[in-house]
């Protein structure tokens, strides 16, 4: 059974301090997912990374991946032509 964490509000997301920003803008699937997985390995458990992607499917993909492998998907914020996706490292 897979349980999703409840995404944070936009205000809470804006206030997050990300330990790392993964800029995957312009990269096609599965690029942003691979970049996110790589980036997650560089932060500590409990820290947050944000992934920038211009692929609108990335936020759902990152959500599915996080849930599957044990990270917390926190939500996403719109940027200019891209989205900022936030994940807290869980393991």
């Amino acid at each position, binding site marked *: 059974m897979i349980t999703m964490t409840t995404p944070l509000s936009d205000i809470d997301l804006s206030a997050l301090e990300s330990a790392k920003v993964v800029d995957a803008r312009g990269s*096609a699937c599965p*690029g942003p*997912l*691979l970049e996110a*997985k790589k980036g997650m390995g560089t932060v500590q458990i409990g820290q947050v990374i944000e992934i920038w992607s211009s*692929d609108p499917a990335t936020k759902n993909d990152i959500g599915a991946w996080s849930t599957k492998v044990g990270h917390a998907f926190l939500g996403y914020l719109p940027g200019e032509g891209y989205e900022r996706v936030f994940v807290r490292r869980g393991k």
Partner: protein
Amino acid sequence: MSDPIALVLFSGTDDKLHAAATIAAGASAMGRPVNILVQFWALDAFRADRIGQDHGLASDAIRPGSTMTAAPAGSLPWAETFRQAKELGDVQIRACSASMSFLGIDQSQLDPMVDDVCGIATFFLDAETGPVVFI
């Protein structure tokens, strides 16, 4: 532990290898072990001296007036996607021994991402608990 997935790569065109690399990388990122057997035309594309070359497109894509490319804009080359999938997860890439002799090559002529050479029984020993996808 998630169920493993097995891919058999047969076609050697860039579009099919791109699709296969995407499936392998996605499955690997989601925590599934990936067993890949590379045979025939796909194996030819994995030769160290050819892997970076243009391998063309499947016949489906080569229609008169078609301007299709092998992959969407912003995609990594398929070989790089396979390399990253290996770096990030449990991905085994093996060359089919019969295809090796068919092509008249040995492992030293293949890209180093190919882990070893095996027969079909060895491949199925690892692949027996998950689906097998033929591309």
